[in-house]
């Protein structure tokens, strides 16, 4: 428990010192969102129809950029070595890292999506559905992205995105559906998302631990 608290404070401190960690996904998200009205159409009716999908796509892309490097810094500067020396529970390390990353990068984006009511003419009655599905979906995406980052640790390539994006397809489909339809239908999608989250937390964390380990052989 002591380790968990101190490791959590360490991660929070590291993230809070680097404001670029928080600002960059926000900027990327807003720019991506702006691409669609500028490049496709700025008709309010069309945008309103496309809005849930667009928000989800941009959240996925912005999340992809920020989650893949969560293990990279500690691997490169030797901190991960120290965790192994001291025998710390890698499960706690992985979970704390993913959670702290989610707080600092995904949470601002979720809050920012509320503004899509204005920018993309997102129907305001569906806003609650959107936020709810985003909460669940971004957590799942963080786990998949962490696995992709762990598998491609130490390699500067686009491979991590290529691994993470196909895995995140169900989340995209379910989350987008949940934001599009009226309340009667969405309980199904929300339940499915919750189930996905519930199962991916243990399975993907274990896979992450194994994936980090294999870079030490």
């Amino acid at each position: 428990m002591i380790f968990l608290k101190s490791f959590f404070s360490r991660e929070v401190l590291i993230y809070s010192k680097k404001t670029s960690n928080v600002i960059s996904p926000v900027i990327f998200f807003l720019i991506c969102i702006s691409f669609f009205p500028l490049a496709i159409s700025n008709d309010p009716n069309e945008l309103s129809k496309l809005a849930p999908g667009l928000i989800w796509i941009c959240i996925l892309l912005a999340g992809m950029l920020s989650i893949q490097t969560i293990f990279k810094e500690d691997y490169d500067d030797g901190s991960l070595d120290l965790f192994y020396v001291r025998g710390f529970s890698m499960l706690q390390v992985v979970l704390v890292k993913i959670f702290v990353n989610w707080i600092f990068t995904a949470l601002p984006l979720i809050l920012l999506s509320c503004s899509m009511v204005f920018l993309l003419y997102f129907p305001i009655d569906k806003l609650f559905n959107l936020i709810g599905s985003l909460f669940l979906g971004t957590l799942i995406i963080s786990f998949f992205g962490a696995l992709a980052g762990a598998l491609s640790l130490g390699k500067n390539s686009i491979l991590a995105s290529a691994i993470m994006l196909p895995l995140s397809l169900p989340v995209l489909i379910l989350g987008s559906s949940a934001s599009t339809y009226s309340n009667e239908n969405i309980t199904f999608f929300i339940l499915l998302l919750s189930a996905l989250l519930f199962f991916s937390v243990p399975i993907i964390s274990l896979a992450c631990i194994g994936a980090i380990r294999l870079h030490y052989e």
Partner: protein
Amino acid sequence: MLTIQGLSYAYSDRFLFKNLSFDLNSGELIQLKGRNGSGKTTLIKVLCGILKNYEGSISFVNFDNSEEQNEIFYLGHKNALKDNLTVLENLKYDYRSDGIELARLKENLAILGLENYLFTKVSDLSEGQKRKIILSCFIASDKPIYLLDEPLINLDEESKKIVSSEIENKINSGASVIFTSHEKNILATKDINLDEYAT
């Protein structure tokens, strides 16, 4: 304290070293020698628990019920310091300075000449100064086993002497140290030449 039996480490398709056996007792200073690439760093990492796919046995003896992991101080090639945090913040969360009071850490930083740098960002320090931060943790710590990989690298002459004498102090107070170094400053009680165990 530490018994190694038949230790071999394979790397891809060849063995780095094979059938290495030795004992590490309290108060011993062992230097690992060998050409570049003979496996000195790898052996230290295996002893620490970072690399686990070795053959053979490593056993820690004479430890009371505390975990083995807590008894090793590891100084590696990489510094494991966070660049965007200050020295003080780094030391607060560094596991090498675990259990050491702040006053003592400050003392030891002063020994190596870094007492004015507590609130500087690590990224503003030179490589040698970064190394000294960790060496000050080393001086302050009180573990039974020290595994040091190139402890004198990047240091100026005066600091090299300080660190060498600190290693001797640790030996005299009963700890055991295994280190690798290309310097001649430290006199070891025992040498292990990894070239002899190469295949």
